[in-house]
């Protein structure tokens, strides 16, 4: 049921995302909520789980990698402070 729903809205989703966000930008949680809402409007049922799920693309993973680097730097900085004493 959910797969069928997804193929139905595939086209409209691409169009709507731009209308919805104005600048054509969107975050994953917002996208999930949007799909759930459309699902509810079309089926009058609340989805048991997010109707659209995707693994983050390599490009999105880069954010996590960069935050990992910052985490490493913060640990190094705290280490420097510790060695000063």
């Amino acid at each position, binding site marked *: 049921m959910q797969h069928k729903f997804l193929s139905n809205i595939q086209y409209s989703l691409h169009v709507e995302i731009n209308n919805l966000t104005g600048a054509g930008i969107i*975050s*994953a949680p917002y*996208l999930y909520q949007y799909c759930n809402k459309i699902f509810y409007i079309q089926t009058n049922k609340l989805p048991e789980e997010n109707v659209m799920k995707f693994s983050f693309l390599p490009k999105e993973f880069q*954010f*996590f990698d960069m935050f990992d680097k*910052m*985490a490493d*730097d*913060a640990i190094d900085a705290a280490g420097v402070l510790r060695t*000063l004493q």
Partner: protein
Amino acid sequence: MHIIETRCDEVTHEIIDKLNRTFITPFDREDIYALAHEFDSVIDIIHAMTNRMRLYNLHNSINKDLIKFAELIEKSVLCLANTVRGLRNLKQMKELSERLIEINTIENQGDQLRDEVLGKLFDNATDPLDVIKWKDIFMDAETVLDQCEDVGNIVEAILVKQA
């Protein structure tokens, strides 16, 4: 320390640059921006603190109270780093929330420690210059813990939106 700080600044710029060119982001764009910016500030404040210690010629003097602060900072930063790394897997939401509480607890301990050491400093120090110097350093140390808590609050906001 300067190398670490420069490296972190570069990563922050890289994140902001990528943010401008990415269509679907894992979290709200403003949260990614705030997280990058505030996390960078943790390192900036530690950098400023170590610089000040050199400037005041305190980097070779051992102070037991500063050791306590350094331990708290290390604990808080480690906890924060693990929390930020945990954002990859939001199924560990409970663990992330526990770490956020720990960061908050460490910050409270930092407040308490700052009050204690400042009181002791004003009571015992004989040289007014020493009071001025160490007061600045202790205040900086406590600001690092405050900043860690601020980053924790941003992570908390991300978790609430993903719940």
